[in-house]
């Protein structure tokens, strides 16, 4: 009974998890449209003096679009439709058909030709005024993100017209990141002017522009070149460290995939002692569940992914239980036969998927909030989908640990695996425990499939590519030890990523396999063996 409750709780947690992830915030207030319109109208007047006044006003406003407008105005890309008088921005004025968008809403408006539009004109004096304003326009925005973007744009763009105002902004700026960017931008300008102490302000900056600016100087002679060389060396060191972090991140993310794929096996093989060669196909079923739900809910990939988490678990668990009841229980105590029979099942499942869907790979849409990356600095960006897989892996692992360690089901599982007859004599329903454990292990394979669908394509062969890896992880970590599986999966992932740059992906994989094969010869019980007579 208790175990049933726990399984309910487990599902509820899964469901909540899915929903929380799918509720992505889209709230963004649209700017005050009428104010925007007014400011634009003020630009489209005859008198250049009035225009200059309007430009100043626009620069002082806190409109989000002002930087873009000023830039467009400077380049002559702020134009007005003859028909209806709407302000548009020409995104590119190459060729005949120009792609345009609404200046206020940013909405794409298709294409237009030169004849459909009127340019908002400026003279040379206004142009030089705009030069500085456009670049620094967003620097006084209350939004830190926008200030940082503006500061980043300034790098390499600072000239005599803007240098002073940038210096002023730098004094006023409070945010550390923005400050660093402004300092870099200003430093680069001063370096161009030949100021030696500018190098000091550029030390440690990872912006590629800095390296490009320093390199020619470092190639020369004299004290300035020496300075530049040490600065460049420092930057290289920092870059190396960041690349190392990036490798580590990829390694952990690959390790998480391995752990997710193997942890279900650690339950069915490690704890129950059942060899399930169809484990990889259960992963595949989880991935296809995601694909199907996305097909059923077009346009809502986030919601679909959220629903896939419990659904993938259930589908894989159902198949797993069917395999246990239909085949495995007749082969108790005959591990080699179990291996062969479940391999047969894996062939059937593969062909089933090929017949029902297609032999081709299908791609699963990644929801917006899992696209893109978390930028730490110029050399280190963490892709969000991988980050999500890492977090997901840790959550699943923790939940599983709690189930195995803290619940009645976990206790019963351990009792049944250690001494089946005795456990039955104590009133444990061994068959029911078998079903639940196998369902749990299989369900987790399904979860792994859901997670994998966010990283790779979904296809009938995807299970096969994970089964050997999963077994290796479980055996490497020490059979029957969940912590071992976690450590083994993570370390294999990291090792693989470390080797990959100089050995290539395939050779890295071969080397890792060879390493494990040799390791198992040396320590047949894995990293964390069970000891004593019980282990015999």
């Amino acid at each position, binding site marked *: 009974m208790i175990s049933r409750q726990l399984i309910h709780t487990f599902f509820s947690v899964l469901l909540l998890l899915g929903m929380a992830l799918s509720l992505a915030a889209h709230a963004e207030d649209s700017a005050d449209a009428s104010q925007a319109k007014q400011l634009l109208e003020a630009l489209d007047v005859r008198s250049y003096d009035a225009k200059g006044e309007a430009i100043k006003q626009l620069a002082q406003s806190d409109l989000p679009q002002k930087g873009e407008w000023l830039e467009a105005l400077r380049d002559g890309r702020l134009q007005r439709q003859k028909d209806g008088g709407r302000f548009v921005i020409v995104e590119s004025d190459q060729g005949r058909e120009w792609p345009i968008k609404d200046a206020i809403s940013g909405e794409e408006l298709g294409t237009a030709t030169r004849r459909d539009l009127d340019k908002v004109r400026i003279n040379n004096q206004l142009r030089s005024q705009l030069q500085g304003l456009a670049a620094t326009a967003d620097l006084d925005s209350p939004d830190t993100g926008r200030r940082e973007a503006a500061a980043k744009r300034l790098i390499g763009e600072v000239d005599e017209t803007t240098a002073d105002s940038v210096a002023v902004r730098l004094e006023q700026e409070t945010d550390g990141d923005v400050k660093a960017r402004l300092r870099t931008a200003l430093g680069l300008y001063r370096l161009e002017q030949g100021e030696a102490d500018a190098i000091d302000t550029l030390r440690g900056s990872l912006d590629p522009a800095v390296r490009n600016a320093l390199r020619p100087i470092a190639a020369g002679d004299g004290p300035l070149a020496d300075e530049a060389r040490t600065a460049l060396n420092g930057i290289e060191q920092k870059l190396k460290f960041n690349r190392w972090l990036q490798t580590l991140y990829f390694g952990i993310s690959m390790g998480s995939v391995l752990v997710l794929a193997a942890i279900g096996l650690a339950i069915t093989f490690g704890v129950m002692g059942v060899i399930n060669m169809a484990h990889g196909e259960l992963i595949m079923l989880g991935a296809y569940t995601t694909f199907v739900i996305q097909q059923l809910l077009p346009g809502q990939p986030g919601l679909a992914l959220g629903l896939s988490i419990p659904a993938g678990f259930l589908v894989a668990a159902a198949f797993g239980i069917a395999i246990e009841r239909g085949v495995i229980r007749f082969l108790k105590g005959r591990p080699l036969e179990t291996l062969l029979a479940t391999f047969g099942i894996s062939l059937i499942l593969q062909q089933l998927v090929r017949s029902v869907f297609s032999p081709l790979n299908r791609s699963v849409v990644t929801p917006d909030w899992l696209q893109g990356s978390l930028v730490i600095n110029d050399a280190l960006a963490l892709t969000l989908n991988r980050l999500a897989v890492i977090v997901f892996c840790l959550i699943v692992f923790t939940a599983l640990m709690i189930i195995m360690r803290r619940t009645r089901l976990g206790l019963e599982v351990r009792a049944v695996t250690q001494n089946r007859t005795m456990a039955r004599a104590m009133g444990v329903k061994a068959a029911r425990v078998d079903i639940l454990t196998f369902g749990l292990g299989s369900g987790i394979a399904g979860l792994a499939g859901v997670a994998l669908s966010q990283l790779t394509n979904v296809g009938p062969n995807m299970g*096969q590519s994970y089964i050997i890896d999963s077994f290796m992880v479980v055996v490497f970590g020490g059979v029957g030890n969940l912590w071992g599986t976690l450590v083994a999966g993570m370390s294999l992932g990291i090792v693989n990523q470390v080797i990959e740059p100089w050995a290539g992906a395939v050779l890295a994989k071969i080397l890792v396999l060879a390493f494990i094969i040799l390791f198992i010869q040396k320590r047949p019980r894995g990293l964390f063996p069970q000891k004593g007579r019980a282990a015999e």
Partner: protein
Amino acid sequence: MMQDVQTTSLFKERSTLLVLGALLVVTVAVTLANLLPQGHPLYVSTFTVSLLGKYLCYALLAVALDLVWGYLGILSLGHGAFFALGGYAMGMYLMRQIGARGVYGNPELPDFMVFLNWHELPWYWHGFSSFPFAMAMVLLVPGALAFVFGWLAFRSRVSGVYFSIITQALTYALMLAFYRNEMGFGGNNGLTDFKEILGADVWAEDTRRTMFIASSVALAAGYLICRAITRSRLGRLCVAVRDSEARTRFIGYRVEHVKLAVFVVSAMLAGVAGALYVPQVGIINPDQFSPLFSIELVVWVALGGRATLYGAIIGALVVNYLKTVFTGVMPEAWLFALGGLFVLVTVALPKGIAGLLRFRQGQARTAASRQEAKA
């Protein structure tokens, strides 16, 4: 009192005579039928002869696997690797025989190396233009791999499913390695476009017939070697190791030596099977290393009946015939059938076809003895 233990010689044994006899009859009949004029009702096409030759190679591979799995209880999921290595050794010999007749006409380098812009033959390709050297490699390469791998594994007492899984990892790693062009074995495409073997045209009817007969002789020899082992005291020792490894150790046997010796013999037989397979099929590529092939051959043995040797031959022939039929008529159904076969054999037919035959025989015998008792 003990006269009935091990008195008949190998060549007087009923099962051995049956196997050798059946093999002889089939070989002679097929060869003669192939010599008939085309259009004769009994004519067997050369294509079919080569197909049968391929089946015989598979049968030898199955016998080799049965020796280690059926008698010693070691389930190798990587026996395809030994088969493939033997095949590659033969393939390398055949590649060297092409000479300047390749597409690029390079007298020294095989086509794929010219294509990869290589200028020199890699060191491990040297010597393969000699047939005896290549044949030695057919035995030695799989044998050496089995020796090193087995020595490591058996010494540290890796057994049961663990051994199965690491053998699978072994063949998987080899497959990935052979897919790489840098390995110098032709990458994805493997070795193909063979022209000559021992000076004879590979595609000529005479050559094909000879290779078919050679496969048959190899199968007979392989069967005799395995049977000689299994009926000796060593064979009984293998069964003892399978049933209780610890007991065997405590009565003074070095279990790891027994396993290693038999494993190496089996790997070499697999290598021979692979070497005969390649010229008849005309290609060897990394797919032969795929874990699927290795595990498929396990089901041949399982279906035929483990620990019988002749069962392995029957199993290999039946499954491969089924495969040829299925893939011709409805290819998508083959994996369903194969998968179903795995489940069926393990759950419902653990002793395989040989078990069924024996059961019928046993029934007949008890019926006969009852008759006698009545009379």
